[in-house]
């Protein structure tokens, strides 16, 4: 017998679960349905199946430009974020030093700062330094907010890689850098890919900071915003929204699944080494 639920409780909980699951996915499903509705308003009644909204958005050059801008920003963000997150994670997992809690708080604080405040803070910064607003300034901001997520993805994985592997590598003749590159880094790959994707998605979707420091070239979310006042544009907006959601959803889920499997594999490999813990 299960100590946590009774039979009746089990049924109730699973029903609630099912209901909430439907509730969570319903809007997405509805969007998908209406993206192929041959009607210029996103509403009932159903007027026939069509792909024309998808075709329309693919011909909308402003939309495509915004998509491209966002993709570029997101790529730069992801690359730089991961490049900063790797040394940060090594710092937290392998080193001891004075002031570690402060550095850790610093790296994690972008998680709690209200995005509005951070957006205007960057606006003020660029204004003070007389730096013109552009996709680059947006990337700068996105890197800051993506960094904690990237670090939090890398740290658990790095913790599972025992330090003695790098020591063995150095014992056999590798410099510290070579040891890291040939042993630790390859073993961190799933988490690195995960952080990359997470940073990418965070940046691609981000609207608050972009609304403050985007300059003349709108990001994809900003473009969507600008189209909301035009109901005739709504169907193609929905269509592109469906595409973006599905693609990002699949990518992130796939990377998460891979990361989990890779973690389990590493556990199994290392468990065989360590066997029963020997009394040191």
């Amino acid at each position, binding site marked *: 017998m299960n100590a946590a639920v009774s039979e009746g409780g*089990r049924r109730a909980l699973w029903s609630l679960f099912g209901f909430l699951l439907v509730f969570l*996915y319903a*809007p997405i499903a509805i969007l998908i349905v209406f993206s192929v509705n041959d009607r210029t308003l996103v509403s009932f009644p159903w007027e026939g199946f069509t792909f024309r909204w998808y075709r329309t958005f693919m011909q909308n050059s402003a939309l495509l430009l915004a998509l491209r801008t966002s993709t570029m920003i997101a790529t730069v963000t992801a690359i730089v974020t991961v490049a900063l997150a790797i040394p940060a994670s090594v710092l937290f997992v392998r080193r001891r*030093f004075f002031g570690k809690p402060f550095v850790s708080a610093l790296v994690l604080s972008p998680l709690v700062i209200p995005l509005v405040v951070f957006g205007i803070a960057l606006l003020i910064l660029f204004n003070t330094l007389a730096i013109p607003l552009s996709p680059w300034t947006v990337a700068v901001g996105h890197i*800051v907010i993506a960094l904690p997520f990237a670090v939090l993805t890398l740290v658990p994985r790095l913790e599972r890689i025992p330090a003695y592997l790098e020591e063995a590598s150095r014992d056999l003749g590798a410099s510290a850098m070579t040891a890291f590159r040939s042993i630790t880094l390859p073993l961190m790959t799933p988490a690195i890919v995960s952080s990359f994707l997470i940073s990418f998605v965070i940046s*691609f979707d981000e609207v608050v900071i972009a609304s403050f420091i985007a300059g003349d070239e709108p990001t994809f979310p900003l473009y969507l915003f600008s189209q909301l006042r035009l109901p005739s544009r709504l169907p193609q907006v929905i269509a592109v929204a469906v595409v973006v*959601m599905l693609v990002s959803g699949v990518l992130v889920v796939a990377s998460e699944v891979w990361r989990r499997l890779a973690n389990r594999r590493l556990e199994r490999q290392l468990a065989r080494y360590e066997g029963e813990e020997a009394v040191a």
Partner: protein
Amino acid sequence: MGRGQGLLTATGTAVEAQERAHLSEEARRARRRARASTLGLASSPVGYLVLFFLVPVILVAMYSVGALTLLPKDEYLSLQPWRDLLFGSIYLGVFWRSVQMALVVSVGAVLLAYPIAYVLALVAGGRKYTLLLLIIAPFLTSYLLRVLALRVILQEEGVVNSFLRTIGALGPDQSIGWLYNSRFAVYFVLIYVWIPFVALPIFVALDNLDLALLEASSDLGASRWRTFRSVTLPLSMPGVIGAFIFVFIPTIGEYITPLLVGGPDNFMYGNAIQGAFLAGFDWQFGSAMSMFLVLVVAALIAVFGRYLNVRTVSE
């Protein structure tokens, strides 16, 4: 035996006399090298954050007290913006409205997410991680798009109303007003957006429970409800509080959802800050508003920080 003793045999007693370790030159050099390498590792991430996170926030603080201004002024350093904010304006009211919004959303999200986390952690067995991923997946897609989706569904010419009109439940010009451009819409959308996120730390807290505790409680005669109230709930509470705080804090400053589905009556603190900067050019007042929010957030973290176990997010 000659060979058996080797060159020197250690004796122990003289060592005791050393009070401070006197380090050899190499030892000192080795420690210096280690410190330099740690510094090297820290330099890029920390440097980046200092430049693009700490400095901007400090600039905001400076603006809020007039140490910096957008346009040259006659006098600097005044607390007038703060006085305006705290005593002379409607913005405190807006702030409390935003806090209320954050409270309702956080409570709502946690209440709905808890049973999900419960059933996954304690009832689902082997499939739990797959189902969890299913719940989390929507959160991993675009926030903006999900809000848009709901807007499209809730608005006057949207899916719900048009559906009701099509089936005749509403007349051709009627619509359910409170679905959109309303407080309900703001709460509904935000709760919807946050449920998957909140489910995760609660799941972790429940998943980490030792089932033996529940079985022991049951063995000692408690009903399942009693077990839940006396064992499960208290033990999962830190995770719940952490999740609550994690939603509460960002939601105070939320402005996208109020803008998209709230309508003019649901002007929140985040909207006010945005307005001060992008519509008006009252950067000083806007900065004072921002710093106020930052201080409130900092206070919340100081008090509730220990519940914020960030590891649960990373798992």
